[in-house]
């Protein structure tokens, strides 16, 4: 005696084989994530990864991608370019269908060559213009481009604020200098003179010298393009020097921490960004509901909540278009036409990997310390 009856063991084996076979047919789709979870850019990476997880749960809960579940493979790039390169390589070896991230422009530029070797696409969150101009067919922008953002800033200054000229304060990194080059070209085309332009070194503790030069030119609007702690110093210095011209800040200025530490100096400042926290579009409702359940009913969506959510949905739709074939994900992405998601309407085609267009650009204004939507689409 003892042991199972023979027939029972047989059925068990059949059952095992069947479930294995089923598991094979329903093999999960791996999506790689390489984002900064530690280091200087972690305050951007952590909420983005949170929203990527939320989106993957949502898609999986709604039948997955044609019945197949998404499996996230998340790696921390420690805000470092060398680690981002390693992550990209390892994620490709693990068989991911696509990579979401990185967050920092310099890390994206460093990791780009790996994509050419591994032929795995990347969905990057950079505004930096050059990222889609490298001739690398695997880089897709899942954000607005600064060529649209700078045009929006200029159009808003001239059409809505009635400014006949502008001055520009920008940071000396790629983010600032590329945007300034775009602003110069755009302003020339739109016939708006740039009466002063000053470069701010990254991390400086005072910008009054730069402001003094800019204000001497008596600009009717001031465009401020940069990111980080220096931006709140710049906003304070401008207001201390008695500037009354309206300021339009970049997406890097439209961050809660910068607005908070600039205090009263941030009041009334316009910013070019991807969402107006006070307005929930129909495409944002599902995400907003989930985040309100999690964080309380007063929670308003941030840009990080939106871009992570959208990236997962972009891949889900592209993989659907590709018929679940890993080799055809790039083609699938290039088939996406006007895919409406939380950040706006995404369109890709062969040779055009910009994703969002100028119709998705928001101008918001700081009122009582919060960003309030003013205009969308340019």
């Amino acid at each position, binding site marked *: 005696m003892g042991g199972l009856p023979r027939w029972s063991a047989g059925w068990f084996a059949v059952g095992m084989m069947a479930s294995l076979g089923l598991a094979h047919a329903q093999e999960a789709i791996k999506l790689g994530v390489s984002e900064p979870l530690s280091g200087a850019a*972690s305050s951007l990476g952590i909420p983005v990864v949170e929203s990527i997880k939320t989106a993957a749960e949502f898609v999986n809960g709604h039948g997955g991608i044609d019945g197949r579940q998404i499996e996230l493979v998340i790696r921390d790039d420690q805000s470092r370019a060398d680690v981002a390169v390693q992550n990209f390589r390892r994620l490709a070896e693990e068989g991911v269908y696509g990579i979401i991230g990185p967050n920092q422009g310099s890390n994206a530029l460093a990791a780009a060559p790996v994509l050419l070797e591994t032929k795995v696409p990347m969905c990057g969150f950079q505004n930096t213009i050059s990222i889609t101009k490298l001739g690398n067919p695997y880089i897709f922008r899942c954000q607005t481009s600064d060529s649209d953002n700078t045009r929006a800033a200029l159009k808003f200054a001239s059409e809505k604020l009635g400014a006949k000229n502008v001055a520009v304060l920008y940071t000396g990194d790629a983010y600032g200098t590329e945007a300034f080059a775009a602003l110069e070209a755009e302003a020339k085309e739109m016939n708006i003179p740039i009466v002063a332009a000053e470069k701010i070194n990254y*991390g*400086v503790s005072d910008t009054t*010298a730069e402001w003094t030069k800019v204000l001497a030119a008596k600009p009717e609007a001031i465009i401020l393009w940069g990111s980080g*702690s220096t931006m709140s110093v710049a906003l304070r210095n401008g207001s*201390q020097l008695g500037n009354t011209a309206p300021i339009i800040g970049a997406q890097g200025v439209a961050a809660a921490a910068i607005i908070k*530490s600039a205090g009263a100096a941030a009041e009334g400042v316009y910013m070019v960004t991807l969402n107006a926290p006070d307005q929930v579009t129909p495409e944002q409702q599902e995400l907003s509901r989930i985040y309100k359940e999690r964080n309380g009913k007063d929670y308003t969506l941030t840009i990080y909540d939106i871009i992570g959510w959208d990236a997962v949905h972009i891949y889900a739709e592209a993989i659907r278009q590709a018929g679940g074939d890993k080799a055809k994900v790039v083609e699938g992405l290039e088939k996406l036409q006007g895919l409406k998601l939380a950040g706006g309407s995404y369109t890709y085609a062969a040779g055009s990997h910009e994703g969002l267009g100028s119709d998705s650009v928001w101008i918001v204004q700081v009122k009582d310390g919060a960003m309030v939507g003013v205009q969308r689409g340019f």
Partner: protein
Amino acid sequence: MTSAEILQLVITGLTVGSIYALVGLGFNLIFNATDVINFAQGEFVVLGGILTAVAVGTAGLPLWLAAIMAIALVAALGALIDFAAISRVRRGSVMTLAMITLGLAVIVKTSLLLWVGPDPLYFDPFTPGPPLRIFGAVLQLQAIWVIGVGVLVMIALKFFFSHARIGREMLACAIDREAAQLMGINVGATVRLSFILSGALGALAGVLITPLTNATYDQGFTLALKGFAACALGGFGRASSAILGGFALGLIEAASVAVLPSGLKDSVALSILILALMIRPSGLLGGREERRHTQAM
């Protein structure tokens, strides 16, 4: 450029210069006792600013109490650094000690990132109200605090090193450790005191400048670089030279913005530093090498 704009650049130069000078003063304290450049001096400053901002912002303490607590804590950290690391390798070369302070700077910076994150912290200026207007130029009230306290500290340090017994003992330690010991000076205690004072002074600088510059975990290096440059320009070893060097550096930066593209500010300032040191290797006021025999502190 109008005269108001030129005046504005001068005021900007003095404001920024006073920040550099305050950081530079802290360098001098430890240098005077040990001949070591403390690379963690910038972190002392950042730590002072961040501790105060957290105490004011999160714990809701009044600013004066938060500032005193921050200064005391960083002073204690200075003592701890000497107790746990520096005093253990006193027979090591100046280079070894400097490397230890560099490692400590990294530890403090990384811990701050883990603790408060990368966002800038801030608290309101000591004196509320609009900035002063002087002939069309603007002077921030907080800058008056920075400049004023900087000058007071300089006077106090000058007195400390020339008249106070303990200050003179501190100098003696740096000039010749063994001789100082033979003369009955407690070298270990004197060096520890220099770390405590330097921590307190760094934190004081952080408290003063945060309303102007914000406090961010990674600011220490830039601050230390400029403070070091201020000391080198003025001449290492005495308080007045850090102040003079700081103001000179701030004014050079502001002047370079007036005539050149502003992105070149740092390059111009540091190039002038190199030039100045090639002409006068021991700084504008002369370094300690020249003064050792004259006792002209």
